[in-house]
């Protein structure tokens, strides 16, 4: 049953990756990346149980903390910094 949950999470990651590739704005991609991060965190927890190694949870916790910090760091960069993108947020 863990395998079924892991499979569902993998399908969700695939859908989110399609959105990350299609864009169209950079914020769509950041949002998709954040969602992939949340799902990956749950996937790590489920995989830990699937493999009978609950130590994976520590990785999941650290991944979750990094996911939040990473998302907000990227956002700050796109809000303040300029990569030569036009002002309407198109990449």
């Amino acid at each position, binding site marked *: 049953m863990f395998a079924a*949950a892991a499979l569902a999470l993998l399908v969700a990651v695939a859908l989110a990756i399609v959105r990350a590739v299609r864009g169209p704005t950079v*914020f769509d991609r*950041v*949002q998709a990346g954040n*969602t992939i991060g949340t799902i990956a965190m749950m996937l790590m927890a489920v995989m830990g149980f699937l493999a009978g190694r609950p130590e994976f949870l520590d990785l999941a916790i650290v991944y*979750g903390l990094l996911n939040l910090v990473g998302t907000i760091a990227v956002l700050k960069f796109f809000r303040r910094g300029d990569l030569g993108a036009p002002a309407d947020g198109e990449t």
Partner: protein
Amino acid sequence: MTVGAQLVVDVASWALLLAGGFFSVVGALGLLRLPDFFTRMHGASVTDTLGAGLILLGLVLQAGLTLVAVKLLFLAIFIFFASPAATHALVKAALARGVKPQLAPEDPTSKP
């Protein structure tokens, strides 16, 4: 724990895991299907709250009264505090950079 009680806990946690997986897929599907950036955030919000909450609850039932269960609960509480912060930062950054939300046409109170 008796065999019967163990069976009840197992069935409950399987149901929670399946429901969590279902809502995760629905959230990602919303991320894909909904028409513009601001509405897509609502889809992702389903994954972050219902999907994550149900899956972690299902795992807590499997873990029983151990340190693993406490870690899972910490993870769930952390998601519930972090996800609105990230969402809010995203929407505010997008609005500041001029991404306009599509609004329903015949609404008198809307002003972007």
